[in-house]
């Protein structure tokens, strides 16, 4: 069996693995970067590149050692470093003498080179694509349900257990019928979790760089830590929404960025690159919607996200919403992150008490 390594974007890797089956091959993937892969990446990459690049590189090195022949890497058309990832990863792997072949997106005539290379039949190709879209939708729903349930669950860990079980089932599901069945079952499973109905959890928005919003290993499981502190999260990266946006740009020429730049206009009149505009616009929107706080994640030295930090500080002062800025590098330790988040949660709780007493 031929395998292809794909970059991991959290739980969505399960859906992308199905997409790879459209080429008649199997995916080599994981839902979170392993610490070993990160270590490999750190030792191979130049020291001052950002952490997601090191994670991707390590992932591909690990894949090559496991005997995987092909790899897939997303292309970016943006302004930031992500644009050069594929080129650089390819070069580093070549210098190391590894044989793994890296494909990118991009069109070469009618078919992208990756499709041309494997040349699957039309039926093998199309069916998994629809299946992927369905799986992405299901994972979106699971994520949203988990953010809502986790802060109010009576027994800590219930949500995570249910979520993990469903994700395993989803990754094993081979037909669209079984995926639909899981989708129906998921709603019931989450309803069965015993919850505290009177509790009004704090609401916090999560913005920042996408691989940190999604990858549990890179962000040190921030969703779980905040959730078990009794905080209802809203993570502003859902792959379903992102793909929806891309298809709307292509088909209808409607970019969500236009809407976001209208929101952020007073503070930021430029799209910057990466998800910097999204961070600012979502922070403003959350402040207006009465969220209790925001957490802004980015790798240390991230070009777009760091450059909007002074603006986020101003938003925080003007709109009276606490924004916690977290930056991660190789030496970031899970315990340190947990301590900071717990302290932040305490501040938010006290803040709400004061507001209620007024």
């Amino acid at each position, binding site marked *: 069996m031929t395998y292809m390594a794909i970059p991991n974007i959290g739980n969505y890797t399960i859906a992308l693995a199905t997409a790879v089956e459209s080429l008649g091959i199997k995916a080599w993937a994981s839902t979170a970067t392993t610490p070993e892969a990160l270590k490999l990446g750190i030792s191979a990459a130049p020291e001052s590149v*950002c952490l997601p690049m090191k994670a991707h590189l390590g992932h591909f090195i690990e894949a090559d050692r496991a005997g995987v022949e092909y790899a897939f890497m997303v292309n970016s058309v943006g*302004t930031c470093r992500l644009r050069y990832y594929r080129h650089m990863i390819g070069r580093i792997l070549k210098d190391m003498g590894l044989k793994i072949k890296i494909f990118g997106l991009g069109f070469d005539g009618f078919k992208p080179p990756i499709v041309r290379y494997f040349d699957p039949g039309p039926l093998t190709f199309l069916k998994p694509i629809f299946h992927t879209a369905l799986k992405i939708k299901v994972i979106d729903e699971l994520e949203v349900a988990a953010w809502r349930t986790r802060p109010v669950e009576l027994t800590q860990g219930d949500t995570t257990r249910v979520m993990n079980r469903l994700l395993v089932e989803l990754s094993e599901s081979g037909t669209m019928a079984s995926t639909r069945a899981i989708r129906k079952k998921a709603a019931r499973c989450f309803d069965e979790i015993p919850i505290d109905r009177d509790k009004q959890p704090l609401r916090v928005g999560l913005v920042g760089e996408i691989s940190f919003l999604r990858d549990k290993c890179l962000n040190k499981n921030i969703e779980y830590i905040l959730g078990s502190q009794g905080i209802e999260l809203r993570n502003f990266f859902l792959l379903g929404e992102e793909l929806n946006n891309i298809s709307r740009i292509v088909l209808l020429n409607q970019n969500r960025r236009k809407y976001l730049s209208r929101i952020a206009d007073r503070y930021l*009149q*430029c799209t910057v690159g990466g998800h910097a505009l999204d961070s600012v616009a979502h922070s403003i929107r959350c402040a207006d919607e009465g969220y209790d706080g925001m957490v802004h994640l980015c790798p240390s*030295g991230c070009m777009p996200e760091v450059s909007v930090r002074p*603006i986020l500080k101003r938003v925080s002062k003007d709109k009276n919403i606490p924004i916690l800025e977290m930056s991660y590098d190789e030496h970031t330790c899970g315990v340190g992150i947990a301590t900071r988040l717990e302290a932040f949660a305490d501040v938010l709780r006290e803040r709400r008490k004061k507001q209620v007493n007024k």
Partner: protein
Amino acid sequence: MLIDTGQKFLKKLSAEHMWKKSADSRVPLTIGLPRMFFYHIYPDLWETFFSELGIKPIVSGPSTAKTVEKASQISETEHCLPNKLFDAHLAELVGKVDMVFVPRVLSTIKNHLSCPKFGPLPDAARADIARGTEVLSIDIDETVCPLSDSLMLLGKKLNMRRDRTVSAIERAFSAMEAAKKNTARPAGKKGRPHFLLTGHPYTIHDNFIAGPVLNKLASMGADVELISFADNTPSKSYILWSTANAIYHKLNTISADEYDGVIQLTVFNCGCDSMMIETYRQLVREKNIPYMYIMIDEHSAQAGVDTRVEAFIDSLRWRQ
């Protein structure tokens, strides 16, 4: 695909309303120019342009250790060094001038990009350092419209007459051309080592960042050529950042007869350089030219640079 259609539309809109009088804008007497980023990217352009329009330009002093000290106190901790210095230069001007000028330099060459950090620069200035002072800003995006059009828009923003703006732009452009030619150094004399110093325009012309290296090289009796960014129509490569592309092409064309060594100047936390340095190194290695890169951060001082430059030049002697 690169061009944001929303921005293009806005540009078109503002060009249509270009020559209608706007009542609320006022003409400042003095304008502050931070000696960073765009000041070095467009040498002499802004001073000439504003003084031709009858506005006195006030440029912040060259960066020194004091500027760096100030920068570390007021600036965002994770910015790159030039961005921190920029904040310190801006803080130096605030309060002394009627307006500060911070353009949004999105691209300096058509179909290329500049560093993404330049995008939110004026907004960050308004939000933080230059709060309370008016920040004058224009979008410079060569992909959408040439620099002269952006300057016309600036003239309009300042309520200037059209013919006056046109003549100011002409003068400013010729001043910039002359300044760009001046930075090109004469060819080295025989017997003296000849080096190429590469880096961003705002690092190789900055007093704090490039100063120690240039001083030491001069005192060791070496000739240094600073890389020139005068070429406005470079050939394309996979690199879209305009300065990185210019360096890439320059390193592609040099030969071992021309230069005894290449010194790459980089700054701590620079995103562009972190991706590109390996590429540069490989290019120069293939040509068998000695290569060294010096990374400058807030704690860099003359002594540390001295040691490295001396060691580099000594190793070149052994090579011969």
